[in-house]
């Protein structure tokens, strides 16, 4: 959504949540907040709106998501950066409010064969579903994630894990650390691009690590990247 429209939409968010629930009381209502500096403002709006879940992008570090009382909103977290991947075990173990993790980055929605390959690989890792951005992707993903398409039972994980497929070119591993470390802090956009590419390269190993409990790759290069979205809860935050 355009940034200049967000303040107005935050004000109408409670009415939107009410309208959805009145139209269909069984509906699970989520709000996808924005990453970075927008998060506190979105967070404040969500408190008033009272959805069932928050969808939080670019999560890199999870602080106290245990939650108490009325503020126990479910959290579905998008882990999209190398730093987030590095902290994945801690993010996943942050509390029982974290009901889903979504891993990955960008979709080339026109490349359905690639989508199918990614979905099958993610399913083999134990992922349970995927995000998509175009109707043509639905059939491919439903087929890949349907239980009858699998010969065995999916591996158990404490939370649902979805795979957000990526189609970015991969940076050669040997040259990646130097390129990341040499980037200037002001070149955030370039760092983001590098980060997304690096994530694409390391995601498979990380998913294996997460599922098997054995750290198979070193992710020190991720520490060179600036933080995206550390979840620091305010006093009335639903994240608390």
């Amino acid at each position, binding site marked *: 959504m355009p940034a200049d429209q967000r303040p107005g939409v935050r004000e109408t*968010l409670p009415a939107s949540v009410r309208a959805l629930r009145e139209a269909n009381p069984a509906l699970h209502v*989520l709000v*996808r907040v924005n990453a970075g500096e927008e998060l506190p403002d979105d967070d404040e709006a969500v408190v008033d709106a009272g959805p069932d879940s928050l969808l939080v992008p670019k999560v890199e570090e999870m602080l106290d998501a245990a939650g108490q009382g009325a503020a126990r909103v479910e959290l579905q977290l998008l882990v999209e950066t190398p730093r987030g991947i590095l902290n994945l075990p801690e993010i996943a173990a942050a509390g029982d409010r974290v*009901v889903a993790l979504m891993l990955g980055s960008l979709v080339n929605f026109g490349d359905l064969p690639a989508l199918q390959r990614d979905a099958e690989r993610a399913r083999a890792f134990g992922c349970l579903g995927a995000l998509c951005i175009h109707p043509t992707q639905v059939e491919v993903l439903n087929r890949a994630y349907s239980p009858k398409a699998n010969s065995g*039972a999916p591996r158990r*994980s404490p939370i649902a894990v979805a795979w957000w497929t990526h189609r970015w070119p991969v940076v050669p591993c040997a040259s990646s650390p130097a390129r990341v470390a040499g980037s200037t802090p002001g070149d955030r956009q370039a760092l983001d691009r590098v980060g997304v590419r690096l994530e694409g390269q390391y995601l498979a190993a990380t998913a294996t690590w997460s599922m098997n409990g054995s750290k198979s790759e070193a992710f020190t290069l991720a520490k060179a990247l600036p933080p995206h979205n550390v979840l620091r809860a305010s006093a009335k935050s639903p994240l608390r």
Partner: protein
Amino acid sequence: MKLWTGSAREAALCRRTQLLVTANKPAFLGEAAASGTDAVILDL
């Protein structure tokens, strides 16, 4: 063949469809709620 060994919550999440709707389009909310989806995500 056993198809599922996870918890009921995992199964529910696996089968759940979530439809993303930009929150600045209130005219779409009724249509989204009636679409048969299990969940609607209001995108800020």
